[in-house]
């Protein structure tokens, strides 16, 4: 019997990750993920751990390959949308994406930007990335869309003379700056230590 909870985290992956792990500590294990609804089934408290990663820059093929690889390791994976599946004209341009992920034109290649990974709790911290360089790269992936959004809104604000758009552009810079600080910190560590 599953229990449903309604949450919207948007692009705040760490908040989503912390919430899922709090639910796991309460004895609830993710069964299904929808646009806003998270369905859980009961489990022993602390049985599982969660990690959340942004994979919107990967192509559909690459997302599937990565998901299959994680499942081969014994993890469970859930893909979900970062933004409630709202799309204009069902075509998305992602200038920040890797090759194969720049144009998303079908339902199979968008709406899967967030990857939730579940593992059995073995007492060890759950980190998908070991080295400082990999962690810095992961922060860079999170930073890119916010930078593009801030730039786009900034240009629009200047073009139409809209302070509201200017305000939104500045707001979009906040997460970009946060991720930049984390990226710079991990890059500095990567200069002298591999992990």
């Amino acid at each position, binding site marked *: 019997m599953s229990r449903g909870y309604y949450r919207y985290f948007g692009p705040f992956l760490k908040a989503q990750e912390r919430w899922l792990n709090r639910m796991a500590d309460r004895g609830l294990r993710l069964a299904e993920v929808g646009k806003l609804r998270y369905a859980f089934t009961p489990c022993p408290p602390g049985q599982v751990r969660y990690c959340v*990663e942004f994979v919107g820059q990967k192509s559909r093929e690459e997302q599937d390959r*990565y998901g299959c*690889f*994680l499942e*081969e*390791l*014994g*993890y469970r994976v859930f893909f979900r949308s970062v933004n409630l599946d709202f799309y204009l004209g069902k075509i998305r341009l992602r200038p920040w994406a890797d090759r194969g992920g720049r144009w998303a034109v079908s339902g199979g290649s968008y709406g899967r930007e967030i990857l939730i*990974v579940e593992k059995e709790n073995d007492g*060890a911290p759950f*980190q*998908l*990335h*070991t*080295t400082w*360089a*990999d962690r810095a790269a*992961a922060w860079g992936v999170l930073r890119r869309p916010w930078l593009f959004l801030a730039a786009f809104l900034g240009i629009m604000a200047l073009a139409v003379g809209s302070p509201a758009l200017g305000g939104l552009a500045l707001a979009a810079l906040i997460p970009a700056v946060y991720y930049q600080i984390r990226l710079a910190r991990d890059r500095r560590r*990567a200069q002298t230590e*591999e*992990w």
Partner: protein
Amino acid sequence: MRDNAKGGALTEVTFFVLLSVVTPRHGYAIMQFVEERTGGRLVLGAGTLYGALSALEEKGWIAPAGEGGGRKRVYRITQAGRQAAERELERLRQVAAAAEEILKEGQA
């Protein structure tokens, strides 16, 4: 994967992933092998392992070796990968010898 392409120096993660498939292994076995052989010093995250395997396969240093039990993808080292591992071992030997000599000189 960040390697010094000019000097050919491999990262420890890359080197151990390469060594782990001298005997064909699947992903989970690679993680266990590396943790065991480093005495728990190096614990590979799944994302890091995936990146390393993708990069090594792209370089032609490892190749798929079919599927193991439970349909897990198995990897094996190629001839080019073996040569790269042997070059890295030689480089590490030279680094260790140089470091030992320098530290001894420092003590004298």
